[in-house]
Every structure is written in C-alpha cells, then in structure tokens.
C-alpha cells in the first residue's frame, strides 16, 4: 500500500516521491553519462595505438560490466537513501500541524454543531429582517399619523374658529349665547302671548 504522503504534498507542493524520483533519475542519468564518457576516452586512447589488441567491443563489454555492477549498488544504496530522506527530511511529523490548518484545532466542530450554528444565523437574519420590516411599518404609520394629525388639527382649528366667532361678538361660548338666545326667544314668546291676551 502506497503512502500517498498527502499532507507532505500539501506542504511541499509536490509529493516527496516525486522529489526522490527526480533525484534518482538525475543520478542514474549522470552515472550512465559518465560511464559513456569513460568509454569514449578509452576508445579515443586506443585509436592512437592501432596495433593494440583491445577491441572497442571489449571496452564496451567492460563498460557494461562496470555499469551493471554500479547500477546494482546504486539501486541498493538509493533505496536506503530514499527511506532516510522520506522518513527524516521529507515527512511532516505526526504532531505537526500546518499553519493554515490551525483553524481545525481552534474550531473543531461536529456536523450537528455547524448546522445548528447555521440555523441560528439564519434565524437571526430572519429576525433582523422582521425588525427591519417592523421599522418600515412603524415609520410608515408615523408618516400617516402626521397626516391624520394634521387633518384633525385642521378640524379642531375649524371648531376653534367657530368658537372665536362667538367670542368676537361678546359671547363667552356658543352654548351660552344660544341659551341667551333661547331665553330671549322665550321672553319674546311671553310678551307676544301677553299682547295677544290684552288685545282679546
């Protein structure tokens, strides 16, 4: 089972295995490359000794033999290096938390808690909206009250105007002046009746 080393990939931005592979391929390439250079130098040297009994094929054979051996050793040694690098250098220790994940330690929360909080927030939003609508309604009513009060004020002023008319003519109030008129009317009636009586 391959350990994907996800957390390390999150930290490094690449998987440690990629890094190791990169080193492996590079080292292996250089090993082959250098061996070819060795072989080429030897071949070149042999060219200047035409009567030498060493054939290029034999040099090639030696190169393959040498490379084979070195590759075997290379793989064994590289395996050890890989384990050490993966274990000691390219791994995030179990007790280490990456900075951006600190939030998970500060705010651990279960699904239920989170949903409960979301619901609470939702309810608060609804209540805020309700209060906002209530505020609109109250302001609208205040506006309406202003108009109604103005109308009622006009009516009351009208009544005041009426009362003032009487006051301007020396009557304290309508009621009184009316009573006074009724009195006068009654007196007139009595006088009239008296007159009628005498005339009979």
């Amino acid at each position: 089972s391959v350990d994907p080393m996800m957390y390390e990939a999150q930290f490094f931005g690449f998987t440690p295995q990629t890094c190791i592979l990169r080193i492996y391929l590079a080292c292996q390439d250089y090993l082959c490359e250098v061996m070819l250079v060795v072989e080429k130098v030897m071949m070149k040297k042999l060219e200047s000794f035409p009567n030498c009994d060493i054939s290029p094929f034999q040099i090639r054979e030696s190169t393959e033999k040498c490379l084979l051996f070195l590759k075997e050793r290379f793989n064994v040694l590289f395996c050890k290096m890989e384990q050490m690098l993966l274990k000691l250098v390219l791994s995030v220790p179990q007790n280490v938390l990456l900075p951006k994940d600190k939030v998970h330690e500060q705010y651990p929360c279960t699904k239920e808690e989170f949903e409960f909080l979301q619901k609470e927030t939702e309810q608060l939003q609804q209540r805020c909206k309700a209060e906002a609508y209530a505020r609109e309604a109250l302001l609208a009513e205040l506006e309406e009250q202003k108009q109604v009060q103005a109308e009622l004020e006009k009516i009351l002023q009208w009544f005041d105007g009426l009362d003032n008319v009487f006051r301007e003519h020396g009557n304290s109030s309508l009621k009184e002046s009316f009573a006074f008129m009724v009195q006068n009317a009654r007196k007139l009636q009595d006088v009239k009746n008296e007159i009628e009586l005498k005339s009979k």
Partner: protein
Amino acid sequence: LDEVIVDTATKREHFPRKILGEVVKAMKIERE
C-alpha cells in the same frame, strides 16, 4: 497517482480559502 495526490493537495490548499471568500462575500451582502 502522483498527479492526483498533488492535485488533491493543491485543492485542499486553495479551495477552503476560495470558498471562504465566497461565504464572507455572501455574509457581507446579507449584512447590507
């Protein structure tokens, strides 16, 4: 596998911030 690992790790690195940005934006609009 390597690509999938790196891709997942990259998402884990970037998406929370991205989603958070959207959530905060939504909350701001809610506030307004």
